[in-house]
């Protein structure tokens, strides 16, 4: 056990297969839900190309330099199966740049579901298959086997921790949400209730979101944020071992644009942090072994890292979302029973949580930032294209003579 103080930088990489404008007339005729033409807002190829240029390539270039310049710098990544597939198909140079990073030995890949789904909450068997699929693609592309786990949208509860413990993971990640932590700080290692070996790392959302959400906000009283300023905030918790900075990878260059100075901030961060001798960086599994858990965390309710509510309401909060997700998982046994791998994969791609997120109406009145992340004009249009795809899945089952 060290008296070191470690930043655990964890970045999440994901792109869904967005559903094209798919109509009632397509259902029963065409099964190409994800094949939006180039130039349309749902074109997956267009988006991957754009994000590659704005975020993936420049960020990986910086991360590589940070690894080379700072021997102690390390980070953790989770990369979904759906984004890896798209990188293989549309931007192999980006995949190569991730592989180069991992090859340095300074990057840990965190496990999750291949399809970035909410299967854990609806279909436990399907969930385990998707985790296994993810494990396999990570082994194939990166030669690693994940020893830490994060669930979609950082969703977490006691049951998930129990499952991950049984599955042999060393570490699991969650939001460091005050109602769950109560008086405790997110900057310690914890043991989830009813588990034996697994350790819980909780996101320091204050400092993480200063970077991920507030960095370029000119109305923020701390604007402009500098690494020096950020370092001064970390001194408040000088006697606490961890600083868990968890965020979307696309923070760098996509959510916070290059001209905001986000890349320079990122590159400067390890330099200033490591100037103090006790300071270091750890990956999530390393951190889980470096310290003793300071307490047990009981989290019977499901929490996520989203919105002020930190729950799943952005995905399953309204009747469209609930109807859509229940209907989809309701096809489980019929779909798997076909042994039709194309059909099964289409069903899985429809499970990606983003589809349900696009149907969220809770912020629609304010027309706020979430609109930026949706390729549809309204939540209703997102629902219509999704549900027509679902109807087409049923049509395909029906064609095979399966009752639905």
């Amino acid at each position, binding site marked *: 056990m060290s008296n070191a103080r470690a930043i655990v930088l964890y970045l999440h990489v994901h792109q869904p297969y967005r559903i094209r404008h798919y109509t009632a007339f397509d259902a029963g005729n065409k099964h190409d839900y994800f094949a939006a033409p180039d130039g349309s807002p749902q074109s997956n190829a267009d988006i991957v190309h754009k994000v590659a240029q704005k975020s993936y390539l420049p960020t990986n270039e910086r991360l590589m330099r940070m690894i080379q310049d700072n021997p102690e710098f390390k980070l953790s990544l989770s990369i979904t199966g759906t984004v890896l597939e798209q990188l293989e198909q549309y931007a192999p140079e980006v995949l190569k740049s991730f592989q180069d990073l991992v090859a340095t030995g300074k990057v840990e890949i965190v496990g999750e579901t291949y399809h970035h789904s909410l299967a854990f909450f609806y279909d436990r068997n399907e969930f385990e298959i998707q985790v296994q699929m993810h494990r396999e693609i990570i082994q194939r592309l990166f030669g690693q086997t994940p020893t830490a786990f994060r669930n979609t949208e950082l969703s977490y509860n006691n049951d998930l921790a129990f499952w991950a413990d049984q599955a042999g993971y060393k570490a699991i990640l969650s939001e460091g949400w005050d109602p769950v932590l109560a008086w405790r700080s997110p900057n310690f290692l914890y043991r989830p209730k009813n588990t034996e070996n697994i350790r819980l790392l909780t996101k320091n959302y204050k400092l993480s979101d200063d970077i991920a959400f507030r960095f370029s906000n000119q109305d923020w009283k701390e604007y402009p944020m500098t690494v020096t300023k950020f370092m001064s905030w970390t001194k408040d918790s000088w006697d606490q071992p961890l600083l868990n900075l968890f965020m979307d990878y696309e923070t760098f260059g996509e959510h916070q644009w290059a001209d905001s100075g986000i890349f320079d901030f990122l590159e400067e961060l390890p330099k200033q942090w490591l100037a103090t001798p006790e300071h270091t960086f750890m990956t999530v599994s390393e951190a889980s072994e470096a310290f003793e858990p300071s307490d047990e965390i009981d989290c019977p309710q499901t929490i996520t890292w989203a919105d002020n509510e930190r729950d799943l309401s952005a995905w399953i909060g309204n009747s469209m979302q609930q109807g*859509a997700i229940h209907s989809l998982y309701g096809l489980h046994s019929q779909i798997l029973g076909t042994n039709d791998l194309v059909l099964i994969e289409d069903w899985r791609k429809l499970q990606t949580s983003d589809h349900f997120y696009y149907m969220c109406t809770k912020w629609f009145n304010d027309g706020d930032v979430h609109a930026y992340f949706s390729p549809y004009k309204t939540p209703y249009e997102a*629902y219509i294209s999704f549900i027509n795809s679902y109807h087409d899945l049923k049509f395909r089952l029906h064609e095979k003579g399966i009752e639905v």
Partner: protein
Amino acid sequence: MLGWELPPHHTGGMGIVCYQMCRELAKTGAEIEFVLPYTADFSHINFMKINPAVPHDVDEIHGGPVGIGSTYDSQEFEYIMQDGTKRVTPMNEHQSNYAKYAAQLVTLGEYDVIHAHDWLTFRAALAAKQVSGKPLFVHIHSTEYDRAGGKHGNPLVEEIEYIGLHLADRIFAISEATKATIIRHYGIPASKIEVVHNAMEFEPHELESGTNTNSFVYADTMRKAGYHILVSAGRLTVQKGLTQLLHAFRKVVDLRPKSLLLVVGSGDQYEELIELAADLGLSGNVIFTGRLNGTGQEWRDAFAVGDLFIMPSVSEPFGITPFEALAQNTPALISLQSGVSEILKHVLKVDFWDIDEMANKIVAVFDNPDLAQELTLNGRREMFSQSWKKSADLMMHHYHHHVAYRAEPAYV
């Protein structure tokens, strides 16, 4: 303020808009004298003074607008004279009378501004401006270009609009779409036009239908037998986009044979649309109700019986029917060419010409109760949060500006 109608008499959309607008303007401190071309009992309105501008020897005026959006349908008015005799007066003469007597009225009081609604009041408004020299605000709810369905309409009306728009000190347009029309087709500089969005203020109790049975027994029965029902309501004119709707509905019926379309209203396209429905093989799927009274039970029931309400207008300066549908818990699909689509978020929207997408959205609502429920829930929430406050403040700002900074008396 010069208007053509106020509820509950002769109620078209414009009457309701004027009523709610004046109520809010009065709250912000405006003293309003509302001039109308007919006499009626307005004792329920206490926030402004209402004056009829009618010839001295006329006792009552009958005819004129009845039912929805029909302000412009009525071509003749029946004057009941003080001596008990009756005289049929054509629209043009009725308008001249209004202009003449409105101009007389404005010499009698103190005014700061004149505010006139749509071309029917323009002759009176210009006369009032000439007499008083006060700044004239022209409020455009719809233009002749809109009413003609995006083609040239009645040249006489267009000329009156043209003169009114050019001689106005400032123009209020009820939507961006209307502002664009005024710029493009009447040659008015954009800087002279301010968009003042209509709001529709409803209280939940105002919207209750009061009965549990529906007047449309056939449609109601078919619905219970598994049919889905689409409702449209409005004048059957080119502007309302019903031709496109029938073509879209053909596609709907191809996919979902148990679909019915209820077409509420009458107008100059009535026969043409019946024939088109027949040509498309839709005689069994389309029901034409003819004209219904815009304030009656049947009118409300028409919205209530639908699974979805559609307003497919080619051109619709505003459009209040989506609100009336939501009031009856029926979600709405409206054209992107309507002014109301600029302010409503929780409705489905489509280009009027995109019949494939129109059909797609109709089928989506028919097939998926979750979608209908979410649209209705959020749509009603949005409807009940509407307020005239912002628009009234904007109008007051412009009144004050013109009164305070007017360097020269107006000349006409």
